[in-house]
């Protein structure tokens, strides 16, 4: 297809697109609207103009978007073979560690990948040791990836802070962990709304729920009240609605590195 394009026009379009690409990666994230500011906005309108006028720019953008999506899919593939070979806990731990999260086996220390993404292979020996806590903050985990997470039947603490692909559909999948899950944190997830929070009522053993800083929730104060009514035994951390009129959620200091087990 590229051969059909006149040499000049193709080189021009690619030249204009390439440097802009690094600056405006936000467009192609599934994570939703990135607020354009100044320079970004100008680049966005130029990109928009080119997309509307040149088929190859549009096709290129479409191809890059598809590639981003398939990267996320690749990260979230099911490790069924690993599960058969090494048991559900090791497979789940491998999945989380590969994504960049941290796991804590019962009576062991937190296992975390270092800044190069390497992690110690000691967890392959922990076949029978259940996983107690998972910290999947900033991981690109999505609906399919939860397959690997739901293998961990004795999970007590789960942190999904700032995960860009966790949305309401994912929350509806968490009910198998209802027996063991005591702590859940969804702070900062851009796609979680009050509709997804409604299906957390299955998690009756939940003792601590963090729903602060959810931009997709339309009315944080009212949502907090309704969630507190829905889960009477749980401490819901988020907006402090009792403090009178507040336009946005308070900034709660979150210690995400090692969530406290109730």
């Amino acid at each position, binding site marked *: 297809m590229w051969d059909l394009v006149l040499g000049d026009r193709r080189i021009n379009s690619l030249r204009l697109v390439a440097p802009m690409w690094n600056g405006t990666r936000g467009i192609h994230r599934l994570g*939703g609207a990135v607020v354009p500011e100044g320079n970004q906005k100008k680049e966005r309108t130029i990109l928009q103009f080119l*997309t509307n006028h040149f088929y190859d720019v549009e096709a290129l953008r479409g191809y890059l978007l*598809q590639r981003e999506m398939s990267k996320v899919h690749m990260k979230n593939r099911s490790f069924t073979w690993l599960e058969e070979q090494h048991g559900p806990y090791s497979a789940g731990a491998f999945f989380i560690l590969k994504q960049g999260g941290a796991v804590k086996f019962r009576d062991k220390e937190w296992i975390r990948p270092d800044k190069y993404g390497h992690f110690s292979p000691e967890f392959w020996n922990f076949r029978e040791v259940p996983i107690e806590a998972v910290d999947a903050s900033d991981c690109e985990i999505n609906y399919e990836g939860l397959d690997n997470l739901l293998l961990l039947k004795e999970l007590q603490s789960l942190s999904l802070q700032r995960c860009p692909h966790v949305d309401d559909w994912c929350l*509806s999948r968490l009910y198998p962990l209802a027996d063991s899950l005591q702590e859940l944190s969804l702070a900062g997830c851009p796609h979680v709304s009050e*509709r997804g929070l409604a*299906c957390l009522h299955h998690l009756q053993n939940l003792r601590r729920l963090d729903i602060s800083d959810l931009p997709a929730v339309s009315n944080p104060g009212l949502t907090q009240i309704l969630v507190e*009514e829905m889960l009477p035994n749980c401490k819901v951390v988020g907006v402090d609605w009792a403090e009178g009129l507040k336009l946005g959620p308070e900034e709660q200091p979150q210690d995400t590195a090692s969530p406290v087990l109730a």
Partner: protein
Amino acid sequence: VAHAGRTVGRLGEGDWDGKVSEIKKKIKSILPGTSCDLLPDTSHLPPEHSDVVIVGGGVLGLSVAYWLKKLESRRGGIRVLVVEQDYTYSQASTGLSVGGICQQFSLPENIQLSLFSASFLRNINEYLAVTSAPPLDLRFNPSGYLLLASEKDAAAMESNVKVQKQEGAKVCLMSPDQLRNKFPWINTEGVALASYGMENEGWFDPWCLLQGLRQKVESMGVFFCQGEVTRFVSSSQRMLTTDDEMVILKRIHEVHVKMDHSLEYQPVECAIVINAAGAWSAQIAALAGIGKGPPGTLQGTKLPVEPRKRYVYVWHCPQGPGLETPLVADTSGAYFRREGLGSNYLGGRSPTEEEEPDPANLEVDHDFFQEKVWPHLALRVPAFETLKVQTAWAGYYDYNTFDQNGVVGPHPLVVNMYFATGFSGHGLQQAPGVGRAVAEMILEGSFQTIDLSPFLFNRFYLGEKTQENNIM
């Protein structure tokens, strides 16, 4: 001439325009006949040729258009035209729908269609991604459906749930005790069993799906036209069956699309016509000659889809059920669900055959709520004894009077008319799956992923009902 233009242009631009109009007038006066006027503006008319004409631009029609363009083997290979008679969609069932999706059916095909639609909606930003548009927000509430059954329906519900679990739906059965435990606001009197959908069930915004499909389908190159289909021009061919009976097979060659508020029409030459006209499908089928024959024969079998009016009421109840409320369908047929954060609920009830309202218009009967819906709601949820109706609307079901299930696939005699209609209230939730099935039928010749052979037109003639037991 170019030189002359340049030399004249140097003298002054205004002179040149005046000279041109003078020359034109001279030529007009010299030559005989009418002046050479511009071609008439036909931008509002549909194209003269189109491979596929889809009658009806609701969610089913757009879904078929989307899958035709997605599954075509060569980019730009199929030319699709969608004809919609009302661009405001004021009476279309899609926009007026409650927007629910559930897998709790008794037919395995229905369950598979709903499961596929759930995965389509979940990945809607991959399927319907348009490069310049922001991602779609379907506002999906994954709260599930709760179906209640009395003593006499309990056995049927158990077997249905078994089928649903086999097909992969995540549904669980609950006893009245478990119900009271989980949802303390329910009055379990008269309830023997309940089935609760845990995943992939809930409700969403149908407008968003419609807009998303519309913009994606436009970006894929589908033509849209606002107009009414008034005539099909077809040719027929006589053939003999193996028993030496004469059969007349028809092929539609042209579709006459009439514009709004005028007598102007455009004949569109086409190869395939898809009837996705919802509540008005029977009229379109009658235009093609379906049902014109002695009753009891295949020629005389009409399309048994007619519009049925259904009411939806929105009320406010401050002490009502909380955030976790699923869409509850009562033993009496009344249903309700939460709407938003502010203690608003919406619901209704399917009327019995005697109570059927007149489908001539979409006016709401408020007495129906007072007498036929509220008592059942108040019995099931005591908190609903005090409520205040805020608003109400009515919409059409494209009701299949034969067996309340959809009609999909080609007509046996009018060989190039395909149906995608008659879903009697669950068209929205099955639209993605049905669209794909019809596209596969057209492009490959048979159903590839989900086998919808029980939904073919033949069953009306043969009298074989594919009955669906769980209808709301």
